[in-house]
């Protein structure tokens, strides 16, 4: 996983609250067998509305999502994070996130920053004044900066550390690889293996 320090990209105002994981990615897309290529599934139903924000040309290349409260609530599908990531989003901001969504995001390199509602609305106003402008997310400083406006965001220390280090769950565990190898050396010989019978 790539470390996250700063990111600059088009910020997209998603002026809706309670965007649950079913809206982020409708259930019909869950049948796929890959972990990537979900970009077309992102907000699939919402995108059928012509005035949906991602249908506006200035936001098509969006990589920072600025959403209303309770983003990512509902079913625990990890696909919601995959779809946002595959579309190109690196960071999502909201006054409140669904817990499981937030946990899944941190594990997969998508930054979720909490910004109180009045500040989110200020960002929305700034974006409305200049649609398609770029913003900069600075994870060290914990700020979201637009021309003439910088707002702080919150993120828990553990997730922040993992993002800065670029550690996915597996990467994190593999830091303890020596211990795993040591543990394996001490396993009893009679413990089962799945090797075909007769194979030493």
């Amino acid at each position, binding site marked *: 996983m790539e470390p996250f320090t700063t990111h600059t990209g088009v910020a997209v105002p998603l002026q809706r609250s309670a965007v649950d994981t079913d809206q982020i990615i409708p259930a019909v897309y869950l049948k796929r067998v890959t972990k990537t290529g979900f970009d077309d599934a992102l907000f699939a139903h919402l995108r059928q509305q012509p005035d949906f924000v991602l249908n506006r040309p200035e936001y098509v290349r969006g990589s920072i999502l600025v959403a209303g409260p309770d983003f990512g609530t509902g079913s625990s599908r990890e696909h919601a994070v995959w779809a946002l990531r595959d579309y190109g989003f690196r960071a999502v901001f909201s006054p409140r996130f669904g817990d499981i969504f937030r946990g899944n995001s941190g594990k997969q390199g998508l930054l979720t920053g909490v910004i109180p509602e009045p500040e989110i609305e200020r960002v929305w106003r700034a974006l409305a004044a200049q649609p398609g402008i770029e913003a900069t997310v600075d994870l060290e400083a914990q700020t979201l900066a637009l021309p003439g406006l910088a707002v702080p965001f919150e993120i828990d220390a553990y997730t922040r*550390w*993992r993002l800065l280090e670029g550690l996915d769950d597996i990467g994190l565990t593999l830091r303890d690889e020596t211990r*795993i190898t040591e543990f394996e050396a001490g396993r009893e010989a009679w413990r089962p293996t799945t090797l075909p019978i007769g194979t030493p």
Partner: protein
Amino acid sequence: MTDSTTAPAASAASTQRTPSTRTAKTLAEKVWDAHLVKRGEDGAPDLIYIDLHLVHEVTSPQAFDGLRAEGRPVRRPDLTIATEDHNTPTVDIDKPIADITSRTQIETLRRNAAEFGIRLHPLGDAEQGIVHVVGPQLGLTQPGITVVCGDSHTSTHGAFGAMAFGIGTSEVEHVLATQTLPLTPFKTMAITVEGTLKPGVTAKDVILAVIAKIGTNGGQGYVLEYRGSAIRALSMEGRMTICNMSIEAGARAGMVAPDDTTFAYLKGRPHAPKGEQWDQAVAYWRTLASDDDAVFDAEVFLDADELEPFVTWGTNPGQGVTLAGAVPDPASMADPQQRASAERALEYMDLAPGTPMKDIRVDAVFMGSCTNSRIEDLRAFASIVKGRRKADGVRVMVVPGSARVRLEAEAEGLDKVFTDFGAEWRFAGCSMCLGMNPDQLAPGERCASTSNRNFEGRQGKGGRTHLVSPLVAAATAIRGTLSSPSDVASEVLV
């Protein structure tokens, strides 16, 4: 600046229990502690070693895809085994699979197994079948080991005194890559069932009664340990049925301490230890029982003598009554949430309060699933239907849990008993347990099913499910209405 060497405490960590401070340990704590690669500090999860990873076609494709994307190998192919079950057809298994999603998932598993060097038992192979039937039958599921699978009914394997639980797709990837999982310790609950089960009352009735008692959330955050004389008296198949449905009580896992019944089941199985290693293993396995003074975080007691054949009337496994009972009246329920859920369930199930359970007609009987599709389950079903004809208009499907079980049943002539009875004798797989393959109920159809979930639409859109034991399923298939085994001649009871 960040400190790149130490991690801040995990934010979501919970401090549910602190096992290291207890000297007397429960079975679950013993197995946990024997698999500690690293004790988590400051509320971070423990790192637990996984002895056996079972893989199937539904929850593995994205895990393998993730490994590929990061260029990671499978750390221990020799502790990993794959089989095809959820999507496999149970008829015409030599023909290409018609459903495109099913076919893609199965073909993807075959490609991944070949690429990553994993042993796979594909459709048509003698060891193919439902993962939770295959592991024990090969002797891979053993006392004191940790078992995971991307499937919630992995709890089945706890019947051997293993710590076994279901995991999500990203955890499947994690185990493939590291053979470990970061986990927060579970709480422990003792479920003690003392006494003797009456004839016709089986393990399935015990677990349905447990769930009705503690509720579908009663086990949340716990590993359940089933104990007491009634549990000790059960066969391994019966214990598996009980542990299987621990998940329906909301628990992470269910366990039974290993004993002579366990060892007798395992002895001589293909992957069981042999010779001197067998003796070493048994000596260790005997140490696994919970210490007499071990403390459980919660305790529940059931009287086996009072249990009766059980059946569900609603749309969750906790909504059940005895077969002699009637559909309850939601109006009599004090808890508003429970009442609302019962009202919705009765509407979906098209049942009126007060209807005697035995007056309810069924359209289908499904004998199968990882809860009840082992050879003993098929024998139990056969013991009731032998020499009889099924009720007119009732479709009866018998689906063995594995190809091996099918072969065994055929060697015993059970297939003949089933077909003479008028049942369909099918190939192994999950089948109508979840209706991912074409084995589904039509909208409005009602089924007595030996599976584990009666959720809306579980066995097909609009289908109505009553969870029952194999004996109740057999009696129901004979009479066409929900029936207790004692309704159809008590002399043939096992």
